[in-house]
């Protein structure tokens, strides 16, 4: 089902003319209200009025995550605080989270995009949505909640965690649509099995899985174990949250980007050059309708490609391929963003730790697990096993406290961790994404 027939199936020409008009408005507004953008545009020598076609967009400078951090917390807001009705934040990479704001109209826009997304995955009025995305600062829970209401579906705001209770609700409440991270969905399936509840006997038609990248292999697993259609959803809080792009249930091949609200570009992450359709590179997004927190050419660091071919579902919006990786070394472990540099700074603050470590990410029983391998130096080597165990316990506790994720520490012999040229060898990701 298509929620907004007019905009979602709009002919290209009309769509692009709307994009240009909205882009020009957004540019004038950020130039006037956000000192950061004014300065960046001035430095680049491009005034909002110079953007006369969509191709002119590439003359504007990029915005990166660091810019958001530099303007923490509200420096990038384009409206006064009295117009902001909601604040969300994403996990910070070095302590500071990324803070985003929404006006009442932004909340409506977002709810509509999620309503479109739900419809795209086969949901309509009368469906019951089991929303297991976390409610809180994270955009997943509330984003899907409002969208479900806008669609007119019934939403169960179950949030994350308390898996046993979730199984009972799934069994008794008869939900037909599941919204969660893909790893949590598989975890739910196993928990259900332990409780003697078979997912395949439940009412689920589709599941909308996002907040972490997942593969076609995982789609097969999700669909087999859960007995539903697995739909990929894409979004990031810097842009709006979930609902930037979604697969359609008809094709399940690429995620339609809601182009009447966002302009996607694919760039070469090294040179910044815009790549032609079909080529793989970093996704860059410009928002066209955001009021409180517009972003201009925001580098998402997600790797994908754009497909302009028409789709069987009838939508005219371009499709992006499933995310195949990141341009930085960020890992998403159980929905939490983790950078190796964070682990490193934890380790450096513990006496006796060598600056050689490795992070190994696995998926066991459908839950991500992180093992941190740390080399034992002579300085910390104690002849007694309990001394070494205390040492690894200390590291585990520190990681839990600073990053909020559980990691297992494994002590290794000096020089046993491969010395790397770059950062990549610090991380071994055994998950099949």
């Amino acid at each position, binding site marked *: 089902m298509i929620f907004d027939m007019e905009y979602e199936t709009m002919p290209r020409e009309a769509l692009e003319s709307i994009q240009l008009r909205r882009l020009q408005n957004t540019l004038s507004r950020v130039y006037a209200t956000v000192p950061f953008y004014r300065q960046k545009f001035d430095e680049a020598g491009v005034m909002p009025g110079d953007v006369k076609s969509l191709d002119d967009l590439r003359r504007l400078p990029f915005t990166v995550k660091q810019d958001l951090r530099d303007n923490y917390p509200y420096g990038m807001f384009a409206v006064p605080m009295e117009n902001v009705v909601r604040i969300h934040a994403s996990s910070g990479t070095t302590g500071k989270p990324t803070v985003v704001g929404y006006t009442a109209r932004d909340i409506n826009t977002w709810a509509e995009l999620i309503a479109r997304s739900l419809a795209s995955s086969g949901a309509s009025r009368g469906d019951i949505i089991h929303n297991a995305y976390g409610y809180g600062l994270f955009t997943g829970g509330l984003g899907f909640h409002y969208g479900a209401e806008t669609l007119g579906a019934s939403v169960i705001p179950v949030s994350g965690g308390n898996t046993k209770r979730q199984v009972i609700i799934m069994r008794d409440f008869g939900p037909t649509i599941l919204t969660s991270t893909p790893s949590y969905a598989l975890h739910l399936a196993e928990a259900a099995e332990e409780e003697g509840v078979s997912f395949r006997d439940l009412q689920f038609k589709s599941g909308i899985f996002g907040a972490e990248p997942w593969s076609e292999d995982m789609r097969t697993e999700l669909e087999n174990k859960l007995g539903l259609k697995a739909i990929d959803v894409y979004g990031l809080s810097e842009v709006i949250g979930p609902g930037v792009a979604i697969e359609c249930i008809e094709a399940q091949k690429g995620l339609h980007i809601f182009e009447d609200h966002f302009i996607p570009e694919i760039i070469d992450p090294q040179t910044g050059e815009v790549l032609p359709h079909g080529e793989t590179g970093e996704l860059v997004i410009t928002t066209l309708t955001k009021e409180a927190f517009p972003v201009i050419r925001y580098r998402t660091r997600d790797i994908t490609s754009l497909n302009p071919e028409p789709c069987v579902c009838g939508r005219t919006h371009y499709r992006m391929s499933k995310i195949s990786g990141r341009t930085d070394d960020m890992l998403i472990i159980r929905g939490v963003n983790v950078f190796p540099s964070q682990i490193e700074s934890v380790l450096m603050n513990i006496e006796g730790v060598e600056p050689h470590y490795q992070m190994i990410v696995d998926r066991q029983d459908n839950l991500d697990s992180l093992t941190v391998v740390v080399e*034992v130096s002579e300085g910390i*080597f104690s002849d007694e096993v309990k001394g070494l165990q205390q040492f690894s316990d200390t590291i585990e506790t520190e990681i839990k406290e600073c990053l909020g994720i559980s990691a297992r520490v*494994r002590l*290794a*012999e000096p020089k046993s961790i491969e010395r790397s040229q770059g950062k990549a060898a610090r991380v071994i990701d055994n998950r099949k994404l």
Partner: protein
Amino acid sequence: MKAEQISIFLENKAGRLAEVTGTLSEAGVNIRALSLADTTDFGVLRLIVDDNNKAEQVLKDAGFTVRITHVVAVEVDDRPGGLHYILDTLTRAGINVEYMYAFVQQSGDNAIMIFRFDQLEEAIRVLEQNSVTVISGSKLYTM
């Protein structure tokens, strides 16, 4: 009266122990006694050898994490109750045994046990006061 012991950190990897024995064998170092404490991830190998300095050097050169620690070698009567007498004596004096293992060779008719204590000097004093023979390092390495 302390004796020196070589402790080596070992990852639980196939062949790692053989690399230690190979390194010592090439250097002509003779192993007199050993014990291996292990967890799921790693082990600590403890050795009494005939040449501590050489063993430490060649193992470090081979990239192992090595530490010299002090232990006490004690003669134990080779009869029922022999070990119990020693442990009982230590318990009465409030001395805690971190770990212990047996030495391969005998001293006359007596067995030899290697002990690691948290209070090493005090343990030696208590044992000698109670007529237990503590064997010096230099004697131990050449037995």
